[in-house]
């Protein structure tokens, strides 16, 4: 919203305060100012002049050669405007002057020299008329700067509308002026109004309110309007505030809206003779002033004439057929108040946001409808003395605002702000803002003015804000916080997540990615990836997807596919949420999953598979310290390999899966890449039982490493050998590990598995005899499952 300082200064004397200071204070005390513009800066040296003579241009049928008197001499001006005539007073831009930033120079138009330009109001940026040059119809001094008459110089600042959401009182200049007055301790001048009681002997209008959403409908009729064009000052203000002048009556309603924040509408009294405010029936359509047809949602408040013909969408837009035109001489003026929600819902439904609806959405003060009428009539009479008010004020006030009175203590305010503020200062501050304060010794009873009571202020914390912002947030001394020093419990789940991320990035060289919470339906379908969906977005039009993911891996496969042309090896992971079902209350079951996808053009599937196994065990053992078992069952996830895959189980709970990608997915994406994927639910992992690690005592005596190479029949699982070795009861075994698997033709149906045993005794150095005994016993033990030494 744009605010003109000239307009503000009509209501409050701010002399002696720099613009910068005004803006800074407003910004810090009231609402956000996005910026300001010095209007008129680019226009200078324009003077009043009189056309003495109009001559035809020899080379043009529309240009004229004017002799223009600038007060001291006659100048030759070539002008293309159709409305030139002798003795016409004009605005002249002589050589060296600036018109909207453009410097005037001597010019030749169709071969004739011109020593300046006669300007239209549009060229000067002070009105919307561009049909001809300005025709000054009041006495002026020739040669005088037009700025001495027209308030062209102004400071216009833009307030962020969002920061006024809760301040219905600030949607007009008078409300802003009230803030300035309070901020700088100046007086707010009262509005000049007509006395509406003067018309009480007139006949009332016929106004019937049938809609509960219409809180108040005030109206009055005016006739004998002869003036059509708004005064220049009004045009300039409308222009500077982002509106265009149209005709006097339309401009006046807009002017009132910008001044008081109260939207108004003028109906042609010859068409609209009375008002019915109805609730829209189904299927009603209305052609608006702009010529667009809108279907009105059922039950929306609708302004109709006495015959129930719709004439305006309440609070949003007037209808075309009943609107004022240049021929209108009598009008029915509407100044109404509507339910903010009804206006918002209707305006959203028909997709039409207007300056009026924006204001009504904020819960306007219903008390100002009649003030706006009194103010409009005052201004109209200043412009057009002959207008006649032909009805009494007709005011249907069905729903008053709720009066708000708040009881508060100065101590509460001081404590909450953290600064001691005296009772006197508090009362003074609130009164400046038009609150009525009753001092009841222990507490203050604060009555909220109507324009703050509809939405903005209802509780004592709201008053804290009023006092604090007036005191100045900048003036509040910071104060340390005193709290007890009890240690707080840190979030282990969260820390383990970080450790996992660091491990994957630092040790395994992986890239962490972030994605979205929904499935990529199209990608999945194209590549044969099936995934369960338990929950969907109601409106998928923007995200373009609808299913909330239950697994992370499909997203990672998509990312792999998007990156595969840039890299030979892709190692990516994400830790993120998935919805894996709905509980008995139909609420989402949300899990935190780790997903990994590794893909390579130069590593075998088997290498990738074992890489994942290594990663899994690294995470589960070294970060979460839990035991997981794998290999008991193949994973039944449809996009992983039916054979080379496994479930991940911890404490009898399935917590994930890993394996090669299903061959059909691999073929669909890129057969050059081997790919393996893993997914595990970190929450379940975190709640699995921890391994109780007991530190084994290390021998002080010399240990011995012995290698054994056994012939293992193909098809025998390592897990079987491992289980058997673990059954071998010998205190001397510190550790063993498989160091090599060797295959060759000579070995036939066997593979050679080399194990390295580390043996030692806690009591003594091992003798040759001890080692021989161990040798014998282990070899005998291995023979029990048919494993013999090679050679």
């Amino acid at each position, binding site marked *: 919203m744009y605010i003109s300082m000239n307009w503000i200064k009509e209501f409050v004397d701010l002399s002696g305060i720099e613009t910068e200071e005004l803006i800074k204070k407003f910004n*810090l*005390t009231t609402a*956000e100012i996005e910026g300001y513009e010095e209007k008129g800066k680019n226009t200078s040296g324009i003077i009043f002049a009189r056309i003495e003579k109009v001559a035809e241009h020899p080379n043009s049928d529309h240009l004229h050669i004017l002799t223009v008197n600038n007060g001291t001499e006659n100048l030759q001006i070539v002008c293309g405007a159709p409305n030139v005539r002798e003795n016409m007073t004009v605005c002249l831009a002589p050589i060296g002057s600036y018109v909207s930033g453009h410097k005037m120079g001597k010019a030749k138009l169709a071969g004739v020299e011109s020593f300046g330009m006669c300007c239209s109001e549009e060229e000067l940026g002070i009105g919307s008329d561009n049909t001809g040059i300005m025709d000054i119809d009041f006495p002026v001094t020739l040669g005088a700067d037009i700025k001495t008459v027209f308030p062209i110089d102004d400071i216009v600042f833009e307030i962020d509308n969002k920061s006024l*959401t809760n301040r219905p009182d600030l949607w007009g200049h008078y409300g802003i002026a009230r803030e300035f007055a309070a901020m700088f301790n100046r007086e707010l001048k009262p509005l000049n109004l007509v006395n509406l009681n003067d018309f009480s002997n007139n006949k009332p209008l016929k106004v019937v309110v049938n809609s509960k959403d219409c809180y108040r409908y005030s109206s009055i009729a005016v006739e004998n309007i002869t003036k059509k064009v708004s005064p220049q000052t009004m045009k300039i203000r409308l222009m500077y505030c982002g509106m265009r002048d149209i005709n006097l009556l339309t401009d006046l309603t807009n002017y009132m809206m910008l001044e008081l924040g109260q939207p108004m509408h003028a109906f042609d009294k010859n068409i609209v003779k009375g008002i019915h405010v109805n609730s829209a029936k189904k299927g009603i359509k209305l052609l608006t002033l702009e010529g667009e047809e809108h279907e009105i949602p059922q039950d929306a408040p609708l302004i109709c004439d006495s015959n129930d013909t719709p004439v305006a969408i309440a609070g949003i837009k007037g209808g075309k057929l009943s609107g004022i035109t240049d021929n209108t001489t009598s009008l029915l003026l509407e100044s109404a108040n509507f339910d903010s*929600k009804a206006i*918002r*819902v209707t305006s*959203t439904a028909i997709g039409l946001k207007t300056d009026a609806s924006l204001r009504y*959405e904020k819960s306007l003060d219903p008390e100002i409808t009649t003030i706006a009428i009194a103010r409009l009539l005052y201004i109209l009479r200043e412009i057009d003395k002959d207008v006649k008010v032909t009805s009494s004020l007709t005011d249907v006030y069905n729903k008053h605002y709720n009066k708000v009175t708040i009881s508060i203590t100065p101590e509460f305010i001081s404590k*909450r*702000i*953290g*600064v001691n503020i005296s009772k006197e200062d508090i009362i003074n501050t609130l009164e400046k803002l038009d609150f009525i304060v009753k001092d009841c010794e222990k507490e203050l009873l604060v009555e909220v003015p109507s324009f703050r009571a509809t939405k903005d202020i209802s*509780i004592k*914390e*709201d008053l*804290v*804000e009023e006092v*604090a*912002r007036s005191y100045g*947030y*900048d003036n*509040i001394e*910071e*104060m*340390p*916080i005193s*709290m*007890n020093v009890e240690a*707080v*419990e*840190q979030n282990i*789940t969260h820390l383990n997540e*970080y450790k996992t*991320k660091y491990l994957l*990035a630092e040790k395994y*060289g992986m*890239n*962490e*990615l*972030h*994605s*979205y*919470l929904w499935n990529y339906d199209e990608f999945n379908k194209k590549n044969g990836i099936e995934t369960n969906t338990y*929950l*969907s*977005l*109601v*409106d998928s039009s*923007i*995200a373009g997807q609808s299913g909330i993911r239950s697994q992370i891996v499909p997203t990672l496969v998509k*990312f792999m596919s998007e*990156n595969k042309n840039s890299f030979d090896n892709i*190692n*990516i992971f994400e830790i993120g*949420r998935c*919805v894996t079902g709905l509980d008995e209350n*139909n609420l*989402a079951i*949300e899990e935190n999953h780790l997903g990994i996808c590794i893909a390579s053009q130069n590593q075998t599937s088997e290498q990738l598979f074992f890489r994942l196994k290594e990663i899994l065990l690294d995470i589960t053992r070294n970060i979460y310290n839990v035991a997981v078992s794998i290999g008991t069952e193949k994973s039944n996830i449809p996009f992983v390999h039916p054979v080379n895959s496994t479930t991940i189980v911890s404490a009898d709970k399935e917590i994930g899966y890993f394996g090669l990608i299903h061959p059909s997915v691999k073929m669909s994406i890129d057969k050059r890449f081997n790919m393996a994927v893993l997914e595990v639910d970190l929450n379940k992992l975190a709640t699995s039982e921890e391994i109780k690690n007991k530190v084994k005592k290390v021998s002080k005596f010399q240990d011995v490493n012995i290698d054994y190479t056994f012939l293992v029949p193909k098809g025998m699982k390592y897990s079987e050998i491992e289980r058997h070795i673990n059954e071998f009861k010998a205190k001397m075994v510190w550790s063993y590990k498989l160091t090599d698997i060797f295959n060759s033709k000579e070995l036939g149906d066997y593979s050679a598995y080399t194990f390295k045993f580390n043996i030692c005794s806690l009591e003594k150095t091992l003798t040759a005899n001890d080692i021989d005994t161990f040798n014998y016993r282990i070899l005998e033990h291995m023979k029990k499952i048919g494993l013999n030494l090679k050679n």
Partner: protein
Amino acid sequence: MNELEQVELSFNDDVKRVSNTKELENLRVLYLGKKGKITELFSKIKEIAVEEKKAFGQKINSIKTYVEQKINDLKNKFEEEKVKSEIANEKEIDITLPVSTGTGSLHPRTSLQKEIEDIFISMGFTVEDGYEVETEFNNFDAVNVPKNHPARDMQDTFWLTNGELLKTHTSASQNRILRKYNGPLKAIFPGRCFRNEALDHSHENTFFQMEGMLVDKDVSVANLIYFMKKMLSKVFKTDINIRLRPGFFPFVEPGFEMDATCTFCGGRGCSTCKNTGWLELCPCGMIHPNVFKNAGINPDEYSGFAFGLGFDRLVMLKTGLDDIRYLNSGNIKVLNQFGVEA
């Protein structure tokens, strides 16, 4: 005596002919070995007359010391030459050849989140996890956004088929956290939020926020100012000045927009701060009494403040990324550049 001088003379003679380590070793054996000339001299001591024994012994010892010294010097000399020649023959390594550290990358959000969480943890805060799928109650009603409040329009919400929604702000966790502690608390709750809006270089429908609350008896605006200054100075690793402006958020009263001195220009004005010298960083305010009431806490007993950090904006400020859409893009070329520290 003659014999001794002879050994010494012959050594001096022999030593001149030694030109490498091997010959030196032969020489050592010849003189100092078990049957070496000097060793043999010692065995002759017993043949010497008693009165000359002492002088003879001293003489042999001095010859031995002399020979040992000479051999040792030569040995050092040969070794030095050998090292020199090895260096001379060594191929120079092209130290400019590239290497790969093999380290991957963390998402820039992760690195910054950890950094900021650590600051809060050092200030005694807990880190709380929230949900991404939330109930309408937690997201709106609990934080004082009543039904049909324009805020529910303002934040275009992703509604779900079961009536729940994707949380539009981290404030959706406030109720749960307030109930958990039911009194004094210092907590931050980072999380992913969702709003149904069109994407462009500065708008995402999926973004991160980090929110914090501090609740105790008699917490004031002055406390909030103190805390925000301290916290942001830590985050930006420089002294930060702040200012509060009125801001409207349903879950706080009074509510503030908080600006911090622009860290890029130190407040002088630059393109990042649009020449204002201030960065709009952090909406905050005193927790609204209704938010307390909705969590079963008496607002007359406790007060507190809440603040939100537009986390993705910080990530972009810190990394220099100019398009927010990269953050959820899965573009390895972009993200790999960040390594493990943002």
